[in-house]
């Protein structure tokens, strides 16, 4: 029990460049004296700024009334002294009470406003949180699972462990893992309420109540440090514009000696025969399209470097290819159709591509499908599975 208190230490920091004062962790002092240093840091920080002062509480996990009153008091006093300043409290949509509590300050001093920091934190978010992604995710997981069920044990998956699947999407992977490996605990986190609702529905349809689906932001999770033997994050590092930030969080919640397992693609290496040239052209363009939206779908082979830079050791990397021969070729074709719809139908349009470009772009997907369904054809989608150990 005592580790719970230690695992989320309280931190107060001020960054003069962004004029942002941030509070993180658990702060439950008996009296304001215990946080006197942070209180004066806040007071001094306010004295040195102009314009807008930010108070970032996105990573504030717990704060008792004693601390809230003390910090609120400094802000309210400052409002009275400095009518030239605006105060913006930045909360996260994940920790609901911060928005409520800090929201009251606006009723007392209108100079203080609360902003809920949410969907805009990385550029491609609106595409991937779209519910039209749900059917693709289903079929994708079905096809990757054939490979991953044998790969996972080589990366530390075993029965009885405590695991977390971060960016779990619609939760299929958690369900499959639960059945195959019987972990003692599974937490599955995602930032799409629609996907989570779907996941909970599917689970309850099967009478499954022991997967802990939770709404959260993978780059600032409520989950405590050093909790999980195995942390998975599949096909998601590649859609963050700052994969290193996300990896840091995965590292943080992993137990020392535990492992973090990630899968990523290298989209330009999708292939097919016949019509390989057109297919290759299109997937090279897919990579460029994603990078326009600051996502790196070429990340797969970079996994080793990312894991090493994040501080992991005993890094293991392998790759596998999902192909049209894995099962029903129509499944493969369905995935490609869904890609075509989102990549050509939405993302390219959003980038402002010409009609000619989009037509040629679509053709490569159609040719990939043609290869997948051709009686002598071969179509592939390569994936890199990698894991690293958090040093103990």
């Amino acid at each position, binding site marked *: 029990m005592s580790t719970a*208190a230690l695992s989320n230490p309280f931190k107060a920091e001020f960054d003069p460049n962004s004029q942002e004062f941030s509070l993180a962790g658990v702060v439950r002092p008996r009296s304001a004296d215990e946080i006197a240093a942070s209180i004066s840091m806040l007071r001094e920080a306010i004295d040195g700024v102009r314009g807008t002062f930010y108070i970032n509480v996105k990573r504030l996990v717990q704060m008792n*009334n004693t601390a809230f009153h003390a910090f609120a008091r400094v802000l309210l006093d400052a409002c009275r002294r400095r009518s030239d300043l605006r105060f913006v409290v930045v909360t996260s949509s994940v920790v609901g*009470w911060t928005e409520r509590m800090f929201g009251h300050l606006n009723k007392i001093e209108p100079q203080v406003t609360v902003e809920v920091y949410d969907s805009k934190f990385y550029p491609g978010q609106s595409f991937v949180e779209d519910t039209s992604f749900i059917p693709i995710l289903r079929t994708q997981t079905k096809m990757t699972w054939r490979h991953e069920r044998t790969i996972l044990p080589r990366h530390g998956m075993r029965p009885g462990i405590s695991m977390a699947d971060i960016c779990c999407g619609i939760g299929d992977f958690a369900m499959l893992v639960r059945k195959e490996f019987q972990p003692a605990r599974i*937490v599955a986190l995602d930032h799409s309420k629609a996907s989570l609702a779907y996941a909970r529905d599917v689970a309850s349809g099967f009478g499954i109540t022991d997967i802990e*689906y939770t709404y959260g932001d993978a780059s600032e999770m409520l989950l405590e440090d050093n909790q999980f033997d195995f942390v998975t994050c599949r096909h998601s590092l590649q859609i963050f514009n700052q994969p290193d930030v996300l990896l840091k969080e995965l590292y943080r919640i992993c137990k020392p000696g535990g492992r973090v397992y990630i899968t990523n693609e290298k989209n330009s290496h999708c292939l097919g025969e016949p019509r390989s040239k057109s297919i290759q052209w299109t997937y090279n363009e897919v990579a460029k399209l994603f990078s326009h939206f600051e996502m790196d779908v070429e990340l797969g082979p970079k996994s080793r470097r990312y894991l090493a830079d994040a501080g992991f050791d005993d890094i293991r990397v392998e790759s596998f290819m999902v192909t049209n021969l894995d099962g029903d070729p129509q499944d493969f074709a369905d995935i490609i159709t869904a890609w075509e719809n989102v990549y050509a139908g939405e993302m390219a349009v959003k980038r402002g591509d010409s009609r000619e470009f989009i037509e040629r772009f679509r053709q490569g997907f159609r040719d990939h499908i043609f290869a997948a369904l051709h009686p002598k054809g071969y179509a592939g989608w390569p994936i890199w599975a990698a894991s690293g150990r958090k040093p103990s």
Partner: protein
Amino acid sequence: MAVAEQERAEAPFEPLLQFEMEMGTFLSDWQHCDQLSTFMARMISHNRADPVRHSNFFSSALNELLEVSFRGASADGQIGCAVFRQGSTERVRLTFPCPPGQRQFYREAVSKTRRGNAYARYLDAISTDFAPSREAVLLDLAINFDAEIHLDESDPPSITLVVDLPLEGIVS
């Protein structure tokens, strides 16, 4: 339909978890409030729709209650805390020894959480007090956690704060 509604209204609160502790032991370390609230919250939240966030919310509320009893109770006797559930609501019953001179204080503080001017009082407490009073803490629970608070005085010298927290509805 009327019957169904009546049944729902009368559906019992089911016990989930409880602890009892010597008051002296409880008061020996301030961290007990944090540790107990974190632990209890995690235990009772596992089968809520979003266990992680439910637990975070519940821990916030329970910690404030434990802090109230930490600050106001006498060292003799026992502190007891029991959590019940009915539908989307958790009920906390927190029992602790209350010095006779403080009973009236609790009666008033609790009844103020239900008055029309509760919000104004709460704002006033934030803008004027450097440290929150126990009364402000109860107002915080009523306002930020939609808590309904009652007092049970049937077992003197202890009193029991009965706090209904409809957190499942707030969390999801």
